[in-house]
């Protein structure tokens, strides 16, 4: 009981302040048992992990963006897309229904699989997918504040393809092999330009702390260094296997590539991996290039305002990325590699020079 009270006092010292909800929060903090839960959720690091940019934000993004992708593609192709699950709201609950179905489906482990690794890699994939959330801030809300946030985020995100390669090896099937090799090729084609583009922005702002970066963006970074923005944008499309670079998991050719043998909830986990990566990279994109949580001030929202701005920017970016599915075909692996190594790398080097040149000005 003493420990609980100590924790409660620690939590209440560092609460998210939302002036418009203040009476409700104060009332909730007076109720015996609920007050601990409310204090934990509204404690700033707790809010960052549980609400935004943490679990709830990620969950909403996943559900909405998968629905939105199917719906938008259907609309462009003169269809309706998912509709029957919840007709009044346009089938918005379809991803949830799919998730339920995955939960109760049998997980088949085929004979050739390296069994232990086959089961554990989809679960291990959550480590690189969720760790960057710890250091990504939204205004005053951050779990761990560190001056090395940007390199940490980029480094941990770069681990996700390693997990995918490991999944492909553990699956031990020919489609998975082809998909894994494609993923490996693509990894080298996009990762270097992506890191150079981030480096250009970091050198321009002269800091790897998100607070400094956002503070210096009175003009958004996309206007200051459009080349780095372009490179990062295309590299994100390649990294999350969006069209036209949906080469590793091309489901018409090699049936989801490295994930071909997964079924049930395991497939649900690996399928959302690309979307989790998209979420993280869109957060990084909006922080580096779109001014992060900068926006017109609304005093009554308090600490919630940066959260809302960052969330809107992230989800708008994700919508743009999934829109490409409906307009682009899938290009060949050699075309993508040529594009990545030749054009993307050279533009990223130019953007790096631009970033260094602008470094003293910004």
């Amino acid at each position, binding site marked *: 009981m003493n420990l609980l009270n100590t924790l409660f006092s620690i939590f209440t010292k560092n609460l998210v302040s939302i002036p418009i909800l203040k009476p409700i929060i104060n009332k909730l903090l007076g109720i015996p048992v609920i007050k601990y839960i409310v204090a934990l959720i509204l404690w700033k690091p707790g809010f960052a992990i549980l609400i935004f940019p943490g679990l709830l934000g990620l969950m909403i993004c996943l559900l909405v963006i998968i629905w939105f992708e199917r719906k938008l593609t259907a*609309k*462009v192709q003169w269809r*309706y897309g998912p509709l029957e699950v919840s007709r009044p709201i346009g089938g918005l609950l379809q991803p949830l229904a799919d998730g339920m179905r995955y939960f109760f489906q049998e997980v088949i482990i085929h004979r050739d699989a390296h069994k232990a690794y086959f089961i554990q890699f989809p679960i291990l994939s959550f480590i690189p997918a969720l760790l960057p959330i710890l250091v990504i801030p939204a205004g005053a809300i951050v779990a761990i504040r560190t001056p090395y946030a940007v390199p940490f985020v980029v480094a941990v995100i770069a681990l996700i393809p390693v997990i995918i390669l490991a999944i492909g090896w553990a699956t031990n099937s020919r489609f998975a092999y082809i998909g894994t090799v494609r993923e490996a090729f693509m990894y080298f084609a996009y990762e270097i330009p992506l890191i150079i583009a981030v480096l250009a922005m970091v050198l321009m702002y002269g800091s790897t702390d998100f607070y400094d970066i956002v503070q210096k963006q009175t003009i958004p970074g996309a206007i200051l260094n459009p080349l780095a923005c372009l490179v990062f944008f295309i590299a994100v499309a390649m990294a999350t296997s969006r069209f036209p670079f949906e080469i590793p998991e091309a489901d018409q050719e090699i049936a989801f590539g490295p994930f071909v043998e997964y079924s049930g909830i395991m497939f649900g986990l690996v399928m959302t991996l690309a979307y989790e990566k998209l979420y993280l990279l869109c957060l990084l994109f909006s922080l580096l290039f779109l001014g992060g949580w900068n926006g017109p001030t609304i005093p009554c929202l308090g600490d919630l305002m940066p959260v809302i701005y960052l969330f809107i920017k992230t989800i708008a970016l994700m919508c743009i990325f999934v*829109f490409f599915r*409906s*307009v682009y075909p899938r290009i060949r692996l050699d075309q993508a590699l040529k594009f990545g190594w030749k054009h993307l790398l050279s533009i990223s080097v130019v953007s790096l020079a631009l970033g260094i040149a602008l470094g003293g000005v910004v």
Partner: protein
Amino acid sequence: MAFRITMPGTGLLDQIKGHLEAIKTGLEEVFASNRITIHYPKERRKYPERFRGLIRFDPTKCISCFQCAFICPANAIQFKLAPNGKFYPCVDYAKCIFCHFCVDTCTKGAMQPSKFHDLAFRSLEEMFTPTEKMIEKPDMKIGDVEAVVEFVEEDGKIKIRREHTLYLEVIPEEGKIELVRHRVEE
């Protein structure tokens, strides 16, 4: 509408133009989508006037001339002796190809067409439809239908047009439909 397909340019500007055009087309479809899906049980297509569906039979007009059984290319029509001493046709829908030759050839117009086409049978034996069932009106739950849909062409584009109605015309009016035999009689 003849047009010549030219090879797209490979220069940088041409490529950027191509990308922008693709995105423009996509955005146009997002904001002014031309959906042509029919929500089938709730919406039905407006069937054409001479749609060949389920065959209906009027025993008061039948003179048992056997013409329908003669003309049937699939050999789907069999005659059976009725209690009143006359022979009446039965259609086996397992064999029927819905050519409506029997409707066309019927001299007295006892065989009549209908637009009812979405049939369902529980067994193969049930597909052999005796005369008594051909006399009945086709059983159809019309309450589900919310709209009748037809495709129309406007400005070179296929568009979908919905008429919200509870009435779906399944059985055409007698004499309204022109059959081949009418022409022969002329």
